[in-house]
């Protein structure tokens, strides 16, 4: 009898939201790694979306529709994510925001697509995800190939005529380096050195000494922050003052600790803006509110991308007749949503569901070891 009571109670919990939801309400799922190795990312994602949803509902909802948020925990794990996706689909969501990690997102793409649920990924930069032709899939984060393009653009505008290109043989860094190299060739900038260093090594002076003999105007490094820091430090020990430009995997304050402030000063890297660098009024006001509610700022930009996904959805729901996944997708795809003002800059989507425009910005390390947006 007791068991039956518990079962009944649980069934009640599961059915309650759908049973009592008014016809006019719109349910949006947030699939995020609330537990597991990326828990801090996932919790930030949920916090941001819930806070935004409260604001929208207090202001009378999106186009008269009340927004109900349904959270699914993917645990940062493709298997758990598939279960979370099934659960969100059965709970009757129109659209799902998330998730962090391309492999996790990929495990859920087909589930949402088959059941006609719109998905906006937030921290999934793998190129493959939008190349499948899924009509209901979007993302607010940039793609891995965008970064190479932005990097190349900055190298060009800074006026460098030849570059030394270094990667670390990881699939991410090598892919980025190859992308960048092609763009350099198209732009007519000479790549005088193209080689990999071994990650985890401590001494990169051999490579640096060789690069020095080729007299490049700039070194571009596409790997991660520990190696970037060693390159900076050893470059300084050699008393060589060539600039280095790195990718978004070097956006970590440990870089300055390892390299030392003097060696890190003047280092450039490309990265989406961090939450503390969103300086427009809209973002700043929201971050103040976020901080007063949850005590901290979101730890990275990827959770802010979830906030952007939510804002885009609300904008679409306001502007379509009937808030169905198809209608929202048509609205997002067909250029009706153009340069929508999000936290991370203007948002538009192309036919594939990728975000159009540059999310990446150029950062510089200043004399005090702080990361500042380069002018």
């Amino acid at each position, binding site marked *: 009898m007791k068991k039956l009571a518990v079962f009944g109670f649980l069934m009640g919990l599961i059915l309650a939201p759908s049973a009592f939801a008014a016809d006019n309400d719109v349910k949006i799922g947030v699939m995020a790694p609330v537990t597991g190795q990326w828990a801090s990312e996932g919790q930030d994602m949920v916090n941001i979306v819930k806070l935004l949803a409260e604001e929208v509902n207090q202001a009378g909802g999106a186009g008269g529709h009340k927004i109900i948020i349904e959270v699914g925990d993917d645990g940062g794990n493709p298997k758990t994510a598939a279960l979370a996706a099934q659960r969100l689909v059965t709970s009757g969501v129109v659209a799902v925001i998330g998730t962090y990690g391309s492999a996790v997102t990929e495990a859920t793409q087909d589930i949402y697509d088959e059941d006609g649920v719109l998905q906006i990924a937030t921290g999934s930069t793998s190129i493959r995800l939008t190349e499948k032709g899924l009509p209901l899939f979007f993302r607010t984060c940039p793609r891995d190939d965008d970064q190479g393009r932005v990097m190349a653009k900055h190298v060009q505008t800074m006026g460098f005529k030849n570059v030394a290109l270094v990667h670390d043989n990881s699939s991410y860094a090598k892919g980025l380096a190859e992308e960048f190299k092609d763009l350099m060739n198209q732009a007519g900038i000479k790549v005088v050195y193209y080689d990999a260093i071994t990650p985890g090594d*401590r001494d990169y002076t051999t490579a640096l000494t060789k690069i020095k003999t080729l007299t490049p105007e700039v070194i571009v490094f596409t790997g991660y922050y520990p190696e970037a820091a060693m390159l900076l*430090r050893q470059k300084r020990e050699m008393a060589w003052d060539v600039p280095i430009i790195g990718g978004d995997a070097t956006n970590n304050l*440990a870089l300055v600790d390892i390299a030392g402030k003097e060696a890190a000063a003047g280092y450039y890297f490309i990265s989406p803006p961090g939450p503390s660098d969103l300086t427009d009024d809209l973002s700043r006001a929201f971050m103040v509110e976020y901080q007063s509610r949850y005590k901290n700022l979101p730890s990275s930009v990827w959770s802010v991308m979830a906030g952007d996904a939510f804002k885009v959805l609300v904008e679409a729901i306001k502007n379509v007749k009937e808030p169905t996944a198809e209608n929202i997708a048509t609205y997002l795809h067909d250029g009706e949503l153009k340069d929508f003002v999000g936290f991370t800059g203007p948002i538009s989507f192309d036919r594939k569901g990728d975000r159009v425009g540059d999310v990446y910005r150029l950062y510089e390390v200043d004399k005090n070891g702080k990361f500042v947006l380069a002018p």
Partner: protein
Amino acid sequence: MEFFIQQLTIGLAVGGIYALIALGYTMVYGVLKLINFAHGDIFTLGAYLGFTTLISFGLNGRVGTGPAIAICLILVMGLSALAGHIMERAAYRPLRKSGRLSAVVSALGVSIFLQNAIMLIWGAKSLAYPADLLPQVLISIGGHSVPLIRVLVFISSIVVMVGLNIFINRTRTGMAIRASAIDQGAAKLMGIDVRHVVAIVFMIGPALGGLAGVMVGISYGQISFSMGQLYGLKAFTAAIIGGIGNIPGAMIGGILLGVVEAFGAAYVSAAWKDAITFFVLILILVVRPTGILPERVAEKL
């Protein structure tokens, strides 16, 4: 020529560190015929202990950089020796009578244990020795400007190795170590306490490994809990190139490996550096299966 000299100095400095670690492998092998796979992690432990004494305890700020580094090196060598001794008592001595394979598996276990213990104590993020610990200056050697740190690393590793050589060849304990390496049974009959000799070997090796760890920390800054894997593998290679079990062989092997790596990366390709290194290993093993200094292995330890 300038390029060649620069690469040579880099190779010598890196090689000096490889040689210091390789000595730990080769001494243990010489006496016990055991490859101590945990040696790379003792090296990591040394780097972290150095970080704690030098930076966390603020030794650097209290007594000035020079004395602080000296005290730190002595402390770390002592603590690493202690760690080596505990490791020998806990993981190898109980297995002395069982087969060599059991001891090797035990060594792998110690390696995993140490690496994870370091991660739990100091954290999974890499730590950094301050970059301004030693002045970043260039000094001139025969018209070529070379970073001071590079020179210091090479000289100190040479000094330590010469000291070790004198210890092994000129002292009674050294003689006991040599005797135990030739024939443990006969050494016992001659009144040598082989257990004591093994204990000493397991303190000298880790002390040198710990020293190398601090040197890497000071000269390159960044230390991480998994750094012992790569250095351990390279030093093990160096010991084999030199002829494992042979102390001068480990020194020559280490320095040769460092120089080959530097030239491989400089004149062929940085991405192929490790491939070149191991190709050299294979080549030497094909031509001289016992390493560069195979003769009189037993007498030289």
